């Protein structure tokens, strides 16, 4: 029974992590149709931003402030990754709209360049981020059933990011313009929306969310130049399975993959579990090629 509760919790936790790494991609790939292979490296930038923020706090600010560094790190990760995304969009991706294969190759190359740059600045070995002490330990329900605070924190963070994204995309004027451009670029342009600004902003937001994911992942995983490669496949899987173009689809995709992955892993092993999940995804996409939540559109692709 305890194992069942713990594994359900683990499944939800894995889902929340998947959702966090996929949310940024849901914007850049899902809404903008850019196959951004450098998404993983934007996550890496977020992780290193957290590392730098931690070091700055440790060396320049009074000790009592240190515990709060993580909030500053989240903000810094978002801003730096968004800035990188904006730069990337302006000098490269802008010229590749409508050419998915070219953007795939070019962003793949950018990803490798970013990895190498990180290796030059921070060195090849991993770096350590000490998580704030208020996130250590866990909520002990019984003596053996412990829910780690870090995983609970990530769940809350995902909920927060998701709500903010929902409010922005569906309730704000700027978000309305974004949706208009993504649905019908020419028409939106005719009506006086600067599609170029909207593109930049949208890509920057998607990248910024990847940065937040990178920052949060420092709590659980490694921080090194190649960490992006561990998450990029999962991120694409979630978005493709969920259905391109719909936030709710991404949420469903992350929940599906996370829970099934944990379930399979419990009864087989990590490698086999992953294979089974991929097999299920392939089978499912045969049945529903547009993913869990299909976007209804009148435009002809």
């Amino acid at each position, binding site marked *: 029974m305890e194992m069942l509760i713990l594994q359900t919790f683990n499944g939800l936790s894995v889902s929340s992590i998947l959702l966090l790494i996929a949310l940024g991609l849901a914007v850049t790939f899902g809404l903008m149709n850019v196959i951004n292979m450098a998404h993983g490296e934007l996550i890496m930038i977020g992780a290193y931003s957290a590392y730098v923020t931690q070091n700055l706090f440790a060396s320049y600010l009074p000790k009592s402030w240190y515990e709060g560094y993580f909030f500053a790190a989240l903000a810094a990760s978002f801003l730096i990754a968004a800035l990188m995304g904006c730069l990337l969009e302006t*000098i490269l991706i802008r010229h590749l709209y409508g050419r998915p294969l070219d953007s795939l190759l*070019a962003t793949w190359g950018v990803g490798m360049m970013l990895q190498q740059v990180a290796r030059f600045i921070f060195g090849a070995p991993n770096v350590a981020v000490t998580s704030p002490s208020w996130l250590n330990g866990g909520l002990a329900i019984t003596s053996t059933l412990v829910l780690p605070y870090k995983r609970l924190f990530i769940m809350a963070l995902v909920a927060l990011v998701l709500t903010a994204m929902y409010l922005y995309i569906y309730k704000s004027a700027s978000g309305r313009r974004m949706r208009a451009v993504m649905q019908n670029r020419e028409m939106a342009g005719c009506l006086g929306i600067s599609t170029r600004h909207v593109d930049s902003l949208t890509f920057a937001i998607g990248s910024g969310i990847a940065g937040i994911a990178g920052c949060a992942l420092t709590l659980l995983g490694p921080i090194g130049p190649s960490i992006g490669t561990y998450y990029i496949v999962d991120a694409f899987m979630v978005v493709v399975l969920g259905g391109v173009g719909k936030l709710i689809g991404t949420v469903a995709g992350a929940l599906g993959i996370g829970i099934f992955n944990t379930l399979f892993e419990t009864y087989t092993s990590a490698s086999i579990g992953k294979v089974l999940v991929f097999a299920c995804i392939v089978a499912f996409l045969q049945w529903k090629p547009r993913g869990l939540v299909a976007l209804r559109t009148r435009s002809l692709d």
Partner: protein
Amino acid sequence: MRLRSLMTKGWAISLVCMVLLSGCLSEKEPATTTSGSNTQAATEASGETIKVGILHSLSGTMAISEVSVKDAELLAIEEINAAGGVLGKQIEPILEDGASDWPTFAEKAGKLLQQNKVAAVFGGWTSASRKAMLPVFEQNNGLLFYPVQYEGLESSPNIFYTGATTNQQIVPSVTWLLENRGKKMFLLGSDYVFPRTANKIIKAQLEAEGGQLVGEEYTPLGHTDYSTVITKIKEAKPDIVYNTLNGDSNVAFFKQLKDAGITSKDLTTLSVSVAEEEIRGIGADILEGHLAAWNYYQTTDTPENKTFVEKYKAKYGSNRVTADPIEAGYTAVYLWKAAVEKAGSTDVDKVKEAAKGIEFAAPEGKVTVDGDNQHIYKTVRIGEVGADGQFKELWNSGEPVKPDPYLKSYPWAAGLGE
């Protein structure tokens, strides 16, 4: 038209950026492939150098580990050159990037042997890269010094193994664990050749020495979520987790183990791929009290090690640490030098013959090249991670252990080689 010109402009800009960047990146390395023509010109001009190859992953997922070994090898070469070189000639290192890609290792090894005609190559980390390079060295009769502990069951006439084989790391550590920490063992490893072979050996040993296997799990390389594995460990209630995870997975595993409320007081873990360098990337607070088995620690108390650590830090920065494979790479260069000097030539067959029985006072203590299998005698050490991220030695084998890559001297290991 406007769009077209804009697009070309964009491409031109990004191309220029890439060229600039790649220029910056390659500038820092002494002699990489990009400057191939330069190195050739240099050797033609002087003719007084002995060329050796250094072939490690300087990019890709393995760069995290291999770059430091490359640094140690360059340090050894620099020291030897400063002391007058080998046979009166300076050593000229030629750097190649294996790029964490096994076919690339084979290709670059071929290039070093055929085109650069190097006297020896120091390189490799993963067993996969070694296995990819092995036929190249055998066909070209080259010489490879491989610096990392590995799963044994191999002995190529063209490779010198300066890292530990199984009977110098895994086998004695399992015996020690069974005697000191309990009988119930859980095996956790990454899903590739080294952990699977190592665990095959451990399982045979557990059966022979009265241990009990309570679980066995493999995760893909680069796996980052260990919540389910940790649940399984909790269910199995082992005394010991024998950890053969490799690379970044260790960070995720140990961070999440601590969050799940399991400390080194509740559960003994012994790792064979976590050294000083990895501890820095995980955080000493997370690893404190956990165990590892190696032949060398930065804290190993020999006079040679004291100078080695000092020189390494002086050259690469005081925040850098030394670790077992780094020391093995450093030692490899000196062993090769000693063999060349004894042979009076860099001819591969003569060097191999001369290398038999060569001794060297390495930072880890005295090492001797075994004449039969080209491995080296090494002292086994079990260490516990302290709060400062350094190891405290709990046990050592007292004297260097004779390498036995096929475990012929262990009756229970009969049949494992197939």
